[in-house]
């Protein structure tokens, strides 16, 4: 399998978790600030399943990326910039999904707010990594 194959695999695999993190943060945010408790729970439910699927799908994106870079885990230039953001984002995504899986709906409002802040940070890190990844592939 050549690098073009891995480039396509990585391009296909990365957008799924990125999109799901966006959905998760938006719905969790809506659930956090929604005054209607029943509706808020529904919003948080969407956020919960979205981050779970994003975390489950992320190893495919990571593995195809490692294969694409021939096992380079940091590199230089834009590859390094991509990695500076993607490794923390990947760790945070897995950590947040596990936390969410264990706590479910039993989180206090304070913990929920802390979770939401970290999820936003994950999203920003993921998008920044995606920006540098796109710069490498598209080049303009």
């Amino acid at each position, binding site marked *: 399998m050549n690098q073009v194959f891995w480039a396509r695999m990585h391009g296909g695999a990365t957008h799924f978790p990125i999109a799901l993190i966006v959905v998760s943060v938006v719905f969790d945010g809506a659930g956090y600030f929604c005054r209607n408790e029943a509706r808020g729970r529904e919003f948080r439910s969407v956020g919960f399943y979205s981050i779970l699927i994003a975390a489950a799908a992320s190893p495919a994106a990571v593995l195809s990326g490692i294969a694409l870079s021939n096992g*380079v885990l940091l590199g230089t230039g834009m590859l390094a910039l991509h990695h500076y953001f993607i490794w923390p984002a990947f760790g945070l995504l*897995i950590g947040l999904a596990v936390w969410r899986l264990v*706590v479910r709906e*039993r989180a206090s409002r304070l913990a929920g707010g802390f979770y939401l802040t970290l999820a936003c940070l994950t999203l920003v890190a993921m998008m920044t990594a995606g920006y540098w990844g796109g710069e490498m592939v598209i080049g303009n």
Partner: protein
Amino acid sequence: MRVSLEFKAAILGTISALASVGLAFATGNMFRPPPQPVPSAGVEALAIPPEGTPAHQGYTLFMMNCAHCHGNDARGDEGPDLHGITKSDARIASMIKNGIKGEMPKFGTKLSDTNVQALIAFVRTLND
């Protein structure tokens, strides 16, 4: 001492996060090609052109945009070795701007003509 569920979950989440990143880093070795034998003891590090010259600007652009494929020493990695290139300036400029389908991305929109000329000036400093 009673530990809350949230705190236990946070510990578990942290362990999972570190384990995932660690596993990903360990997987890197599987995809890393075996090290190539060094042809001679005298393989020099990439010589950095003097500051203020177009070649130095080209070196900076190379490290930012090209090194991850052509290697930090421009000796080739995923992309080819750039030492001793015999192609014309116009051909190199065209390849940088338009890319090579399926092999190299195009940089025509990202890099200005001055940038491309600086890159060419840098590539011309790479002699075998």
